[in-house]
């Protein structure tokens, strides 16, 4: 029984990383209409930045996380302005942005490889709260608790921002049609920048926390999050923060449980089959939502 509960916590913590990744990815997709292949590299670079903050500047854990998050956000904005803005000006569709995002992915991924010396680095054990907590015979690590709390906070914050603020209304409006944002009284350019930053920051948070708890700071960090986070976006629906977060956590639990009780080689198969099933049977995600494309 305690094994089951421990695995449930493991699944939640793992799924929280997917969720953090997914909410940013979905936000960009819904608001800016971009299928951003470079989204995973923000996580890798955020972890690299946080590690540098720890090793070079000797910053404490909370500040290092902050550095990572800021780096993820800044990278999100930079990629948007370099790779997407020129196309947006010209009114090129989703396809062009996908290609430039692939280009950005190639560049950032390989530079991340250079930055880590093609190696997988890890945070020094004394640079983060690495202890184990024991509650009634159940063991879990402090990092897992932090990850789950961070995911809940980020999801709640993002949901309130998108659904219950004027700025969020503008974001949704931009997703529909850029001029519409102007009607709500918000500069669409500011909405674009803010969306890119928030998405990058969420991905960055996933990167730093994931980089610490999986002892892996390298370009593969972002790639790993990318595939599963993408699945979470599809299952949860990209236009709903709660859906993406819930789906991310659910996928994490499903992954851990199917490895524990079914088979590791079928683990990813189960995840992706579920993904395809959702696409075909419930193509608007868990919480539904309006169609993205006009008739």
């Amino acid at each position, binding site marked *: 029984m305690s*094994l089951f509960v*421990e*695995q449930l916590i*493991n*699944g939640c*913590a*793992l799924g929280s990383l997917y969720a953090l990744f997914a909410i940013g990815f979905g936000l960009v997709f819904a608001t800016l209409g971009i299928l951003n292949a470079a989204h995973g590299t923000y996580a890798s670079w955020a972890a690299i930045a946080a590690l540098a903050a720890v090793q070079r500047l000797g910053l404490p854990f909370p500040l290092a996380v902050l550095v990572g998050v800021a780096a993820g956000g800044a990278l999100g904005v930079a990629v948007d302005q370099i790779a997407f803005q020129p196309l947006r000006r010209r009114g090129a569709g989703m396809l062009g942005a996908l290609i430039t995002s692939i280009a950005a992915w190639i560049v950032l991924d*390989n530079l991340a*490889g250079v930055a880590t*010396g*093609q*190696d*997988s*680095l*890890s945070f*020094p*054990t004394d640079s983060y709260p*690495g202890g*184990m907590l024991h509650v009634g015979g159940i*063991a879990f*690590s402090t990092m*897992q608790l932090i990850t789950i709390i961070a995911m809940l906070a980020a999801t709640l914050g993002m949901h309130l921002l998108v659904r219950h603020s004027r700025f969020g209304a503008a974001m949704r409006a931009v997703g529909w049609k850029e001029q519409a944002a102007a009607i709500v009284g918000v500069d669409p350019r500011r909405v674009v920048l803010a969306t890119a930053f928030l998405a990058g920051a969420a991905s960055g948070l996933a990167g730093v926390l*994931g980089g610490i*708890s*999986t*002892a*892996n700071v390298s370009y*593969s*960090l972002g790639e*790993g999050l990318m595939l599963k986070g993408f699945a979470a976006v599809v299952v949860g629906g990209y236009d709903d923060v709660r859906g993406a977060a819930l789906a991310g956590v659910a996928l994490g639990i499903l*992954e*851990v449980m199917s*490895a*524990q009780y079914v*088979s*590791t*080689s079928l*683990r*990813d198969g189960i995840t992706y089959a579920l993904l395809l099933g959702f696409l075909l049977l419930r193509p608007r995600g868990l919480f539904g939502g309006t169609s993205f494309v006009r008739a």
Partner: protein
Amino acid sequence: MRIAKGAALVAAMLLAGGSVLAGPARAAALAPGDYKVGFVAEITGPIAFAGKSFLAGAQLAADEISANGWMGKGTHISVLVKDSASDAARAIQDIHQFIADRSVIATTCCILSPVANSVKPIVASAGIPLVIHGATLPGLPAPPWVYSMTVLPGPKDVATAVKMAETTKPKSVTYFLAADNDAFKARLGAARAALEKMGVKTAGVVSVLTADTDFTAPATQAMGEHPDAILIYTTQAPAVGIIAALRQRGYTGTIVGNDVLSPASVFKKLGPAVVGIPFPIGFSSDLATTPEAKAFVAGYKAKFGNDPDIYSAQGYEAIWFIAQGLRAAGGKPTRATLAKTLAAQHEVTHNVYGGEPITGGQIDTAGTTIVAWSADGKLVPWTGAK
């Protein structure tokens, strides 16, 4: 360096003896000139960390062989590099370019077995020798064209597992397996059979995948089986992750690793978590005892500023093996005559392992050294005591 030269001299004499037996045609000295080896490198991509070591070792070997004219007066060997990023399609294109370059006499490549598998038929049909420097799949070599300078890890794993069982006497053990890697599947199978024969029960086998990054759940699963020891048969990244996760969750029992734990970067990353975990090794700079090995370590340090690892040793051996073939062939060797000569070699004479016999194009090493990382980051012989 002086000692190394001495050993080389001995080896050369041995070789000369061999060629006398083989007939007078081979006695001619190698014609002066620059002999080029095409090196398909993996210096970017998923396993670039190892790929760089392989290449560095090869370059050192070429320097050494050329510097003192080991193959003959006025002879040089040089390494031409093309990166494949571990992509089979790229590796094939690189090999084709080497084949087209008439000045390239032999090639060496491949850390990944699938890549080696796709390059094999091409070199065989084009007729150019290929020395595989990293892929561990059994059955890859196919003389006269294809040779492997990778020590097969299977038997060493069994020896390590058995020694662990003899010293710590576990009742039950749990295995970690890279389920998408058949080589590790076979290695685990051999070790498990040996242990079960000794009466050690299998508590469970926890599968992970090579590309996985999160090992908290697998660690929890393994610890849930309450084994006395845990044996890890996975590639490097999962092995590192598993050890980190096990130690983090407070596992204090015995852990047995495998050769992927030998590079210095592993200690740098894991620190105290990896100390005392036994694993077998073919070469280690800390344990270098033979003159050749010591010379290799010294030369490597002087050239690259850090210690060589098992990967650099394998890259180093690949070039030495080719050089040995060239020297034995003598005269003006072609790719075909070089292949014929390589097939006749029964040992890599200049080796850092203290003996490196070749059977069917596959090298082996003499004994098994079981080592573990010490607290100050050195590889020390594993004594079995905890």
